[in-house]
């Protein structure tokens, strides 16, 4: 169970996250939706203790991330940007992380097989394609067999097969009773994966509901999302042609 209470983060004068409160429950895939720049990644970074909040708290099983006894065994995280050194092999990257949390080294080979990187495990990760880098990030998230998964835009760069694979993986992890919190800006993807959704815009909570309930508000989930976020989209293309 993840609990955010009054979570606030400012970068200079911009409030990236503004008094955000929500719970993420185990046993379900919870989608975290919002337009570009709405504060999804910042919220994830606050959850992981990478950034300090200016106000409020976020706890995981009642504790702050930095107070977790074996962080990777409790929380697995995939952030949107690459988090590995280009000169290190996939295997070495995972072996280092495993060592930090006393995770047996056989898990490294297991997760490499699980994400389909076993044949590329000794190659330098700097040569990886976007999709392979994403798979390595997922392997790191799964390494400690954690009860909670935080995935920021996990389908980025994946091929269709990979997209389906991760969709099935998230569902099966949730079915095992794990907490799966996944951010995306792809509404159609979330419609197929998530049962619950938390929608933010401009750093504020816009909705915290089931996918079914949100979709029922309009003609489709996408329409409902666009109506909900219309007042808060940070970056929007100018509409062309006759208005």
């Amino acid at each position: 169970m993840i609990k955010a209470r009054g979570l606030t983060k400012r970068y200079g004068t911009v409030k990236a996250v503004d008094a955000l409160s929500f719970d993420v429950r185990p046993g379900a895939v919870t989608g975290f939706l919002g337009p570009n720049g709405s504060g999804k990644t910042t919220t994830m970074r606050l959850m992981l203790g990478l950034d300090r909040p200016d106000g409020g708290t976020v706890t995981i099983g009642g504790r702050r991330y930095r107070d977790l006894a074996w962080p990777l065994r409790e929380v697995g995280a995939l952030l949107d940007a690459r988090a590995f050194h280009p000169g290190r092999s996939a295997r070495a990257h995972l072996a280092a992380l495993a060592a930090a949390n006393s995770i047996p080294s056989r898990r490294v080979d297991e997760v490499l097989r699980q994400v389909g990187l076993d044949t590329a495990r000794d190659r330098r990760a700097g040569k990886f394609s976007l999709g392979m880098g994403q798979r390595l990030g997922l392997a790191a998230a799964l390494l400690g067999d954690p009860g909670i998964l935080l995935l920021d835009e996990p389908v980025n760069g994946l091929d269709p097969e990979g997209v389906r694979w991760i969709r099935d993986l998230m569902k099966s992890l949730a079915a095992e009773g794990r907490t799966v919190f996944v951010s995306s800006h792809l509404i159609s993807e979330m419609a197929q994966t998530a049962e619950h959704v938390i929608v933010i815009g401009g750093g504020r909570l816009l909705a915290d509901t089931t996918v079914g309930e949100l979709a029922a508000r309009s003609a489709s989930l996408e329409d409902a999302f666009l109506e909900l976020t219309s007042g808060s989209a940070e970056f929007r293309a100018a509409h062309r042609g006759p208005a």
Partner: protein
Amino acid sequence: MTSAAPGIPGTPAAPSAPAERLRGHYGFAQVARMEWIKLRTLRSTWWTLAITAVGSVGMGVAIGFNTRNAAGDLTNNALAGMVPGLLFTGVLGVLAMTGEYTSGTIRATLTAAPRRVLLLAAKSAVFGAVTLALGEASAFVSFFAAGAALRHGIAAPTLGQPGVLQAVALSGTSFCLIGLLGLGLGAIIRHSPAAIGVLVGGVYVLAQMVGAFSHSAGIYMPILIVGNSISTTRTECVTGPGNGAQCIHFLSPWTGFGMLCLYAAVPLVIGGWLLARRDA
């Protein structure tokens, strides 16, 4: 190359129950193991360390080979390669920290070990141990190799002579201490070019300038400490043909060593303080 087949969908590789409960919590030993794996799995680490050792020993040998003055401080001559060598470990120290930021590895590192002061302590211990071993090996090999290279009937110094063992052993610490200075600067500055600039500027350029303008301040500069305080066997002040009867005072070996420790410790403490407070 995403052609690699994904694993069997929906089959976590581990038993479906969450991992077996482990007692206690992660600590220094675990984080140090992570840092050791990270350090040794980069090829650039080994290249840099090899060039450093070969270069510093080679310089000592070249100087020994060309020594004609048997009355000079032969131990100090043999250790002359340590001064350029420590620049490499200093830069390697910077990169050990800034490389985490430029590659984004810092995010993975901090999710595995979110206690940041512990992280920097473990990183410093691992990096310090590796560079200390390299530095001591380089200093002793330089000493013996330079002694063996002496010609013109000059007898090689031995470790049993007064102050020699101390000079060699203390010089061996310089790789580690300047390496840790680099690591601390990397933690403070976080950008590779800027941190390397500050390191090289501070250790070499600034030291030369300060030394040229003011001798009393110059003796506190790290390369003059390595070159003249800790690597010398002389106990009195230096008089030579260049400076006539004028007597040049340098810091005593142990005072110099203490200063180098301070140069390593202060940036590490500031870096640790900043690391714990800043967003990663």
